[in-house]
């Protein structure tokens, strides 16, 4: 190899080494951020409360509460990540979740047992996901606009189902909401956590496996990374995208059911803002908005971060600081994501 060749090789190795460093940062930064957030909230009120004592961020009661409220986003954000990896987005997940909660609560209120109510809601959710898929993949309407339209639709239908004058499907003097509706999302099953939590864990596991070990995850990344290459390799991008929207619809049902169970009612506005939470989680987790890259596991950590921030902030600042805090977190996540992904644009 001549001198020029040797120089090229050493530049190549240098490149590979710096890429390795960057790759490591990309792998571990998020745990660092999570740890930071937890530490901040743990020491925040140390003047007033004891470490791990009552009212402390890391007290058992507080942790259980945090995890229970985190169930919907943990159930949903995995599927959301998969969709974003393929290069598409669904802004209607919040309203879908609300509609699912409403329908589920309605059925429970009217005497349906848990499982049949769940199954029927699942069918509804799959149909809703299929609608999104139709608008985006088949009719080729821009995903943002298409899912804003369905957001409106789902929210509208949920509001119409709820009887006038009442703000949610809930029990009343005439018709009592069966108390066991609470069990799924609140009743202690193991270590203080309810069924819904373990279902969420299972969902996370499933989605992580789906992303890493199945053809669904691989094709999603291929579609998002280089659509032409994917199509040339024989991947049916339209069908794949459609399927991914349906999957999001499916898990939106589980999230909605968990929320309805937790609140003992079906609130047509209960899912508002869920799409933003999902976007923040996904951004923190390093998924590129343009697709191709992403990790379900990291998104889940991102979801935990946002939950910590939301619940943690509630203990240190009044409720009316929530929105500005969340907006700042989103913009922070945008910057973080931009710095992480920037190298891809260069290459």
């Amino acid at each position, binding site marked *: 190899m001549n001198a020029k060749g040797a120089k090229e090789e050493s530049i190549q190795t240098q490149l590979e080494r710096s890429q390795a460093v960057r790759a490591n940062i990309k792998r571990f930064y998020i745990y660092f951020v999570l740890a930071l957030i937890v530490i901040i909230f743990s020491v925040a009120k140390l003047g007033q409360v004891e470490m791990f004592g009552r009212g402390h961020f890391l007290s058992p009661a507080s942790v259980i509460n945090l995890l229970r409220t985190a169930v919907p986003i943990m159930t949903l954000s995995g599927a959301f990540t998969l969709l974003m990896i393929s290069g598409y*987005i669904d*802004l209607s997940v919040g309203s879908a979740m609300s509609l699912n909660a409403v329908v589920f609560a309605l059925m429970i209120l009217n005497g349906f047992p848990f499982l049949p109510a769940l199954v029927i809601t699942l069918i509804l959710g799959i149909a809703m996901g299929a609608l999104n898929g139709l*608008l985006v993949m088949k*009719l080729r*309407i*821009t995903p*943002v*606009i298409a899912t*804003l*339209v*369905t*957001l*409106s*639709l789902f*929210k*509208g*239908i949920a*509001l*119409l189902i*709820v009887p*006038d004058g009442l703000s949610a499907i809930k029990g009343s003097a005439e018709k009592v909401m069966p108390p066991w509706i609470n069990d799924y999302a609140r009743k202690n099953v193991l270590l203080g956590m309810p069924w819904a939590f373990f279902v969420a864990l299972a969902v996370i596991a499933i989605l992580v496996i789906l992303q890493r070990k199945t053809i669904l995850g691989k094709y999603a990344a291929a579609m998002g990374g280089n659509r032409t290459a994917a199509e040339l390799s024989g991947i049916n991008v339209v069908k794949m995208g459609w399927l991914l929207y349906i999957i999001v619809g499916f898990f939106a049902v589980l999230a909605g059911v968990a929320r309805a169970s937790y609140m003992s009612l079906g609130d047509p506005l209960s899912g508002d803002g869920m799409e*933003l939470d999902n*976007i923040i989680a996904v*951004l923190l987790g390093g998924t590129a*908005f343009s697709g191709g890259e992403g990790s379900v596991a990291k998104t889940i950590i991102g979801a935990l971060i946002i939950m910590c921030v939301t619940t943690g902030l509630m203990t240190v600042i*009044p*409720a*009316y*600081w*929530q*929105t*500005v*805090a*969340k*907006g*700042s977190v*989103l*913009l922070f996540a*945008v*910057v973080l994501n*931009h710095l992480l992904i920037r190298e891809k644009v260069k290459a």
Partner: protein
Amino acid sequence: MNVETKQARKNTVAGRMSNESFLTLFMIGVLVVLFGIACAIVPNFFLPQNMLNLITNNWFIIILGIGVTFLLITGNFDMSVGGVIALTGVLSVYFCQGANVSQNALANGLGLPYGLAIALALLCAMGIGAINAFFIARLKVPSIIVTLGTMMLARGIAQVITRGAQRNTSLPDVFGVVGNIAIQGTSIKISVVIMVVLVSAAFIFERMTVSGRRTYLIGANAEAARLSGITVGRHLTFLYLISALLAGITGILLASEFKAGVSSRAMGYEFDALVVSLLGGVSIAGGFGSVLGMFVGAVILSVVTTSATGLLLSPDWQFTLKGIVTFIAILAQRFALDRRKG
């Protein structure tokens, strides 16, 4: 001069309708049809007051629609406008509430003169616009995400200043003037007049100014625009600042009308602004759309929502109707344009 050029001269004078004009006319047609149906099936629809309301009900959405339409033409969203309305309204109150007049913190402000207060409030609005521009034009982050973030930021600041509620005390008398005065002998508020002025100015901007033309060029082909010497980033910054300014003006007018700065004001207005722009024929694929169309879209939306109320449908039908109407409009416009292209 050859035969073709002679023909070209003739045809130029005769003028061939642009696609925007075609779609605007199409939507006017849709409006007429819907209007006819409404008159037929909705009791008491065809009343003079109702007709007037169709245009005056929505004045704030129309003003927002100006900025949103221009940005959509370039292929960008602005979902922060609702939050900016809330922020500007709250700030305009806070800045001119009397200082140290009360024990209640929410009744104390900065005591500035009204003119200065609204000027500062507008400046803050444009600050939000500047944040949008930075992320979108400079960092090239997708506009939907950024503007959802700044929406929360703006509204969040409003919530902090009002502690989640509103500020409405210790205001100078002049505060309630601009939002409430009406034209002599009518019930038409000045706000509506301002809206008409702004839309007309926007229409002139879009059709007749170099800057307006630039908007279309960027939307049609950003790369070609750059190679033709257009500073795309600068123009997008301009548009985001304008959008924020328009939202700011709306916020001041609304705060004045209700003599209060409410942190929950204008919830969902950004979505309505998007809807009326889409109804007006704007294409997010870029380079295509018109504020006149947006105006027609706003009237269409008014007809639909007024009919719904007239038919005694509960206000909860709003969301579903808006979704369905938007969807049908998108498809219909696509269909009409495809047919036109032959």
